[in-house]
């Protein structure tokens, strides 16, 4: 893995971001705005799965409304995250919270687009209380784990 991190660190993009005073803070701010959208949509869907929030709409209805917010937030975070990463790839390599974040991120994406998606696709699938509870609690733990890991990168 180390050669890949070294390569990222030496890319023109990484260097340009390090040389600029403004690109890093701007990418950070966009990363955080997208976090609000992504985690916000996860919270609203999880609340609904647990019987709170938008209760008067069906679970598939709420999931359909939120899907573009989740995806848009996620793609924006991946894009800005890649920029931030290139500018300090070697710092990330030595940073345990970064590895924790990447593992949690992989699991969160997988969990969301398999289990959560199939649970929220139809009224029948969403009828199981156990299943919706697992989807909601799993989502919250995984996505907030990603967020906490991300915040910890800077504190480590």
């Amino acid at each position, binding site marked *: 893995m180390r050669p890949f991190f070294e390569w990222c660190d030496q890319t023109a993009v990484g260097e340009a971001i390090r040389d600029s005073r403004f690109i890093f*803070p701007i990418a950070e701010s966009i990363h*955080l*705005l997208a976090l609000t*959208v992504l985690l916000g949509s*996860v*919270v*609203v869907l999880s609340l609904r799965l647990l019987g709170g929030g938008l209760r008067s709409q069906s679970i598939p209805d709420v999931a359909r*409304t939120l899907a573009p917010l989740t995806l848009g937030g996620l793609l924006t975070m991946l894009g800005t995250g890649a920029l931030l990463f290139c500018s300090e790839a070697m710092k990330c390599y030595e940073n345990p919270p970064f590895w924790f974040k990447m593992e949690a991120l992989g699991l969160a994406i997988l969990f969301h687009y398999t289990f959560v998606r199939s649970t929220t696709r139809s009224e029948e699938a969403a009828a199981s209380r156990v299943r919706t509870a697992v989807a909601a609690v799993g989502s919250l733990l995984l996505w907030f784990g990603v967020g906490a890991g991300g915040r*910890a990168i800077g504190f480590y």
Partner: protein
Amino acid sequence: MSILEICQWLQDTEIGTAIRESVWWFPIIEGTHVLALALSVGTLLVMDLRLTGLVMKDRRVSEISKQIVPWSMAGFFVMFVTGSLLFWCQAVKAYGSLYFRIKVVALLLAGLNALFFELRTRRGISAWDSDPVPPLRARLAGFAGMLLWACVIAAGRTMAYNF
């Protein structure tokens, strides 16, 4: 006492010093402040998107508001408590930061926008509650809310840098 002296006194108090110098409290409070964005502004986003006529057009505005806004309020309570503690332990730095001032102004404007909506625009909600796309003044409140909260978040993040 000038405001700066009050800030200095505040961060020199026992609690301010304890938070600033602790290994765990500061990251935990700061981390909670960041992640509570999802509950506060993240949930409010759904309400603002409905106000602008972009999502859940087949649902009444009041119905969405009743179900979503209490969660946003809970989120803002968490933000206010953690934000106050963060200010407490670094009041002088915050006071001297241009971005903190921008954040406070944007916060006040967001509050005024919400207040104006509650006291005026909402009064006539029965006339447009079921409209897929609410009237201009309601859409403006939604767009202004999203823009102002984005400013609060971006300015808050930028406080960490010295420009």
